[in-house]
């Protein structure tokens, strides 16, 4: 019996992490959740200064809209509205019934229509991994459509594609409405169009509670990659739907004279988004870093401008004016 008492005592004593840890912070209280999210953004969001956002003012504006009895939909609506003040598609609130999004692409005209290209330009397109490609303009131009940096392609597949177009005058890489994805696919793709290790930009990440507190610059290099390089002119088509990793890609192309950006400015998304969870279990993300170009200019979040501006004319659905401009740039 005494051993049972002893064992029970030890088990009781050693099950006391609840006493040792800070209290459970799970809460449905709308004000607890508002304060938690506001504080997290305040501590880590990276573009307050660039976008001239007074975050304290946002608290004063939105917090009074809530009280302890606010419903979950009311809470979602207020938090989403507050986050949308950041004008950043890397900022979202995710609940089981809705996901908030600022939707940068809607701030500019739509400049891509897949059917126009499929119906009027591509005669016999191949689909190699995530890449759809074909010859254009009497085989003088290679066209490669890459719709998402989330999608992968192997080195062998890229070797095949570039070898296929080795005798063209140039390649058009269509990244319109490419909403981004893995950052590691940027050097994998761009490394095919360069012949030496090249510094293309920097990133800086929040490292303190002050809104302008950032860590040291982290360099971003592109190095030649793969068995087949293509060093002739390359045109990259971009628009407001080109976001995140595509904006990184667009900034990086500025370091290479053989690459030209045509279309509309990208949508931005130069900051790396983090991820987190509120006391009520909803999740969120927002940007915690900034992307700088070679001259340490910070314009990427507002969109990387095209070298040659062009727009899709929606009165003529049989012609892609941006693609036509790209063909002209290579063949002219």
């Amino acid at each position, binding site marked *: 019996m005494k051993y049972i008492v002893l064992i029970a005592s030890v088990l009781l004593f050693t099950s006391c992490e609840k006493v040792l840890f800070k209290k459970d912070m799970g809460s449905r209280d709308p004000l607890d959740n508002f304060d938690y999210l506001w504080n997290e953004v305040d501590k880590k969001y990276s573009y307050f200064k660039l976008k001239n956002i007074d975050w304290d003012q946002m608290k004063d504006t939105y917090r009074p809209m809530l009280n302890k009895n606010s419903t979950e939909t009311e809470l979602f609506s207020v938090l989403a509205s507050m986050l949308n003040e950041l004008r950043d598609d890397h900022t979202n609130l995710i609940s089981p019934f809705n996901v908030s999004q600022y939707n940068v692409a809607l701030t500019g005209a739509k400049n891509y229509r897949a059917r126009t290209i499929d119906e009027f330009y591509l005669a016999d397109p191949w689909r190699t991994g995530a890449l759809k490609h074909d010859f254009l303009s009497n085989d003088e131009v290679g066209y490669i459509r890459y719709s998402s940096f989330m999608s992968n392609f192997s080195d062998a597949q890229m070797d095949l594609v570039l070898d296929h177009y080795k005798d063209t005058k140039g390649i058009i890489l269509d990244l319109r409405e490419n909403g981004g994805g893995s950052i590691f696919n940027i050097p*994998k793709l761009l490394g095919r169009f360069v012949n030496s290790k090249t510094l293309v930009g920097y990133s800086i990440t929040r490292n303190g509670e002050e809104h302008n507190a950032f860590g040291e610059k982290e360099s971003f290099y592109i190095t030649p990659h793969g068995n087949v390089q293509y060093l002739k002119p390359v045109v990259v088509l971009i628009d407001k739907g080109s976001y995140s990793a595509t904006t990184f890609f667009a900034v990086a192309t500025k370091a290479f004279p053989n690459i030209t950006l045509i279309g509309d400015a990208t949508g931005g998304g130069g900051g790396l988004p983090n991820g987190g969870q509120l006391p009520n279990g909803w999740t969120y993300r927002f940007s915690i870093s900034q992307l700088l170009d070679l001259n340490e200019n910070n314009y990427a979040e507002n969109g990387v401008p095209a070298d040659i501006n062009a727009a899709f004319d929606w009165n003529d659905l049989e012609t892609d004016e941006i693609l036509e401009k790209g063909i002209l740039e290579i063949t002219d």
Partner: protein
Amino acid sequence: MEKHLKSLLLLFFIIGSFLSFSQESDNLKKPENNSPINLYALFSIGITNPIYRDFATSPLFYEGIGIEISRTWMKRSEERERIFGIGFGISFQTARIPESDFIQPGSIAGFGKFDLFYQELWKLDILSDNKNNTKIGGAILTTQNVRGNPDLQNNTLGLENISNIMASAQWTRDITRTETKQLNFWIWKPNLNPVKRDLRFLLNVGVLNFNYRPGYAYAYDSELIGMETNPVEWAFSNYKWSMNGWRIKTHLEYIKYLPKGNARSWSYVWEAAHTPGKFEDFQMASHQLRYTIYFNSNKR
């Protein structure tokens, strides 16, 4: 007479020297008999209930269930004990989310854990007797966590190392049953045969507590050098070592020895750690019910 005296002295020295030799021989043998050094190879499997909370990504506790397996080498005597062990655990957790009256959110996370453990203990005579053996000493425990929670997007991967130099104390109570005992359950009256048994309690308390945790922003755009970038280095590039926090581990074990020197045991292992790191806290605890087989590998 003098000749006889010399002969008697010579005989005395010869016998004396033999006696001395015999006594010394007994002295050498006695500790061997009473305090044999046992070498054990231990294999353990346990059901565990890990709990953790990473304030850098969520204020919520995650808790779930999993298994842990470990392999341990042990050298044990009455006077001293030395242990080296490696362990691996895998578990799945759900977030402890307050109940919603609308649509309940949910988060599922995976948690892998790798342990290395080394401990040396020495007998504390003042707290030991025929039935009790108390040892004190120190231990090094290092744990690498690998956590995954897709709901946290770019913060999906959680990695931390928690390494501790610990003070250790172990109390072993000999609860050997020396006589046959009969239980009485009315119609069923089983006999319990004599058996060697121990009840052991081990306490490890962190003295120097180190942790390797992410930087201020948790996720980073670190240096990218084309395709030569190592994703692991990239992920770890802003991690920092800190010396803070605490860690406690307890182990209550019931050991039943088998006739050939092997043994098996059931134990309850509890562990808790708090690592403030440089920026945001990480906390973890686990409760484990463990079954262990001891293989005695002494060469006799």
